[in-house]
């Protein structure tokens, strides 16, 4: 009954047999043809979506698709270790705390407030990188560039957000934070303490230090003894205001507040730091790109502040496209929504009931060629599994008068490393600027070279191996650095 009458029976048998062999073997990537499908872990069902039209529909349907049930239960509760009363408060009716904290982060990571964060980040990174260098003009060897970038960028972000005292008094903060980040999937799936003791121990130490910091910071605030813009003990204005906001919120004792602080630090580093590494590394190992990026940086030196015009740098088409391409290829995270309406229809064929958890793997959506072909076919001039910094550039005019500009118009279903729609990551501008500031420090203030650029090609990660998690190079990449001569 599976063989049509006009088919050669022997060929049909062979095809039929092959299809069953495929069914019985675990050949890779055979379900992602664009139709939604479920993965079912003993009754816990997850729907995966790949088609950009479906993704756009999900991101637009903020009333029918809500990220907050997943965030409250799995992220705040299971991953960050928030006490149940705080989680219950988020899940209760009659408040708009999700909106308040989102707009609060947005206020502190845009405009002039973003400029203050950029400046603090720049000064901190410039200082810590310079501290460990040999005498001027002499190269200092870096045995592992990924570890080097992770250390300096995480330190600068943590100091910018939390102040210097906490970070310097807790030498294991960066190591513990990255252990916690690496165990993200096991923690949010709720694996017990005996199964992942290292992850729980790291999180316990982080939360304990944040509790002590929160108590000390609160005392200083109540006495009016803090600099409300940025304070070495109480941290940034963003953190100070968040602490005050949560202190007045039901269910938010110092344990809940420490989980919120961990959430903010996690949000500020887990994607931004690896993106910064890949952003920098791809630039360093490609001579033409290196020349063009360095020219952009040098053209935006601000002599008044002895720094750079970061706001202008972030609007440069090449840097915007470089950032977008890095996040598309090297950000391996999930966007999650839960259906809150009785039924949600993707199209005429598929619909899903209330309570369904919907997952979008941003990297896989970014590598789904049929989706790009529908949205912007010219961006497929180079394979989606390769890094192409000009992928997001479009050209106006004709002949020799072409003017390049960055455009992500129509790509909301193809490139969504920072989510999308009403719930797009409120700190995405800060994440973007972390990359730009790091480039300005490590390329503008210092000279950084990959020792053997050709060899590094063999250390590229497999882009089809992970649905989420940090993407590491497959081996240590040696580099060297020295202070740039004026």
């Amino acid at each position, binding site marked *: 009954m599976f063989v049509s009458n006009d088919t050669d029976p022997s060929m049909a048998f062979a095809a039929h047999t092959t299809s069953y062999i495929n069914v019985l073997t675990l050949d*890779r990537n055979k379900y*992602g043809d664009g139709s939604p499908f479920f993965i079912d*872990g003993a009754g816990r069902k997850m729907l995966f979506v790949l088609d950009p039209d479906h993704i756009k529909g999900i991101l637009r349907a903020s009333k029918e698709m809500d990220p907050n049930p997943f965030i409250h239960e799995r992220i705040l509760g299971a991953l960050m270790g928030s006490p149940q009363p705080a989680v219950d408060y988020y899940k209760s009716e009659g408040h708009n705390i999700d909106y308040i904290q989102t707009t609060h982060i947005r206020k502190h990571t845009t405009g002039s407030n973003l400029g203050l964060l950029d400046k603090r980040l720049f000064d901190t990174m410039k200082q810590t990188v310079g501290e460990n260098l040999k005498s001027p003009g002499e190269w200092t060897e870096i045995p592992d560039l990924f570890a080097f970038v992770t250390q300096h960028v995480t330190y600068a972000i943590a100091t910018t957000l939390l102040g210097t005292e906490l970070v310097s008094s807790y030498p294991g903060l960066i190591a513990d934070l990255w252990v916690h980040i690496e165990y993200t999937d096991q923690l949010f799936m709720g694996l017990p303490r005996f199964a992942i003791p290292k992850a729980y121990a790291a999180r316990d130490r982080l939360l304990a230090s944040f509790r002590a910091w929160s108590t000390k910071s609160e005392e200083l605030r109540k006495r009016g003894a803090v600099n409300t813009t940025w304070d070495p003990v109480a941290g940034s204005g963003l953190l100070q205001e968040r602490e005050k906001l949560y202190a007045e919120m039901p269910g938010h004792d110092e344990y809940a507040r420490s989980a919120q602080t961990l959430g903010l630090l996690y949000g500020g580093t887990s994607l931004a730091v690896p993106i910064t590494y890949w952003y920098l590394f791809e630039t360093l190992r490609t001579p033409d790109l290196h020349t063009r990026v360095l020219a952009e940086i040098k053209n935006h030196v601000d002599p008044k502040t002895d720094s750079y015009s970061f706001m202008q740098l972030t609007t440069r088409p090449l840097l915007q496209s470089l950032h977008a391409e890095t996040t598309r290829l090297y950000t391996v995270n999930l966007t999650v929504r839960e259906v809150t309406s009785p039924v949600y229809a993707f199209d005429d*064929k598929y*619909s*899903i*009931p209330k309570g369904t958890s919907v997952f979008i*793997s941003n990297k896989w959506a970014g590598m789904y060629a049929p989706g790009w072909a529908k949205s912007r076919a010219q961006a497929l001039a180079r394979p989606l599994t390769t890094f192409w910094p000009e992928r997001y550039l479009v050209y106006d005019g004709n002949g020799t008068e072409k003017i390049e500009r960055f455009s992500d118009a129509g790509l909301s279903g193809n490139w969504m490393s920072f989510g999308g729609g009403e719930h797009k990551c409120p700190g995405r501008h800060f994440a973007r600027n972390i990359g730009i500031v790091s480039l300005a420090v490590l390329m503008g203030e210092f000279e950084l070279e990959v020792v053997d650029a050709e060899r590094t090609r063999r250390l590229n990660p497999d882009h089809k191996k*992970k649905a989420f998690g940090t993407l590491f190079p497959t081996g240590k990449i040696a580099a060297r650095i020295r202070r740039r001569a004026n």
Partner: protein
Amino acid sequence: MDGNTTSVGQMLAALQQSVFAQAIVAVVVVCFCTRILSSQWFHSIRCSKGRNLTPPTVPYWIPGLKHALSLAYDPSTFMATCL
């Protein structure tokens, strides 16, 4: 040919006498049948021209648990193999 027939006969005789072997064979048969049936369900929904369908579940080997072991062992890699 006779030798093959004899060895198959010996295996069947051993199977009849060992409860453990019978259990192993039963588990293997159940898993294979589950895989074939769940694949059939998956592809029948994919190919269907119906309306308001619930999307299909990726084929699995173990009834009840479905993909739980793969998700517990290495969720990121397992999801990537499906995408």
